[in-house]
């Protein structure tokens, strides 16, 4: 097992996004479509947090 880094977070968020997209395409019910949209929104949030955590280096 590799120590998790930025790419792990991006992998999770991308997969989550496309799981949401799959749900959005297959569901014909408004409530379940809303659930899929929630997954998509959460993957975006996870992306933001991952970039905040990993995309800088110490200046000192």
């Amino acid at each position, binding site marked *: 097992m590799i120590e998790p880094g*930025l790419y*792990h977070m991006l992998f999770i968020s991308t997969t989550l996004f496309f799981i949401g997209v799959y749900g959005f395409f297959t569901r014909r019910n408004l409530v379940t479509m809303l659930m899929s949209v929630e997954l998509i929104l959460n993957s975006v949030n996870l992306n933001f947090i991952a970039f905040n955590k990993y995309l800088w280096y110490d200046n000192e």
Partner: protein
Amino acid sequence: MKKKKGKKKKKKTLLGRGEAIMSGSTVIFYLLAAITLVSALLAVTTRMIFRAAIYLLFALIGIAGIYFWLQYEFIAAVQIIVYVGGIVVLIIFSIFLTQQAGEQLPKQKLGRQLFAALASFCGLALVMLQLAQHAFVETGNKAIEPTVANIGTQMLGVEEGGYSLPFEVVSMLLLAALIGCIVIALKSKPETE
């Protein structure tokens, strides 16, 4: 010299090419990731609508767990309050009030499912390819730690880097939503003779 060293060390973690050690925290991360992804997948594939909501709940809690793992405790707590305490309860209530109890959702056409699976898999492959080829450049500045105090001062800050205006705009949106709710709730019932 010192700077270089720090950068190198950081890059290792950034690219995820650390030594293949199995520390406890790594195991916990993989567990959380697995919980999140599996329950998200179940949430969009199960045909029982209430179960879908519960799987969604687990996926959202898994994401909150990842935030805890990243040691962004405030964000994690907000994730739980907003999504679990708010949105999942809202979804469950809308299921209670609008859907038939215990009935399974109608089966989708195979063609549709195949198309959706293919489309999302292609999208996933495309994005993954892009990710693999793209080298993310670290910015030199340390990002602001999302602690309670920092988020508060940033939200209401009016000087450079403050988010006062977007914050107020979002609160206007919330106000509009509140008024919309009241208008819908006030709508008088049609008179029946």
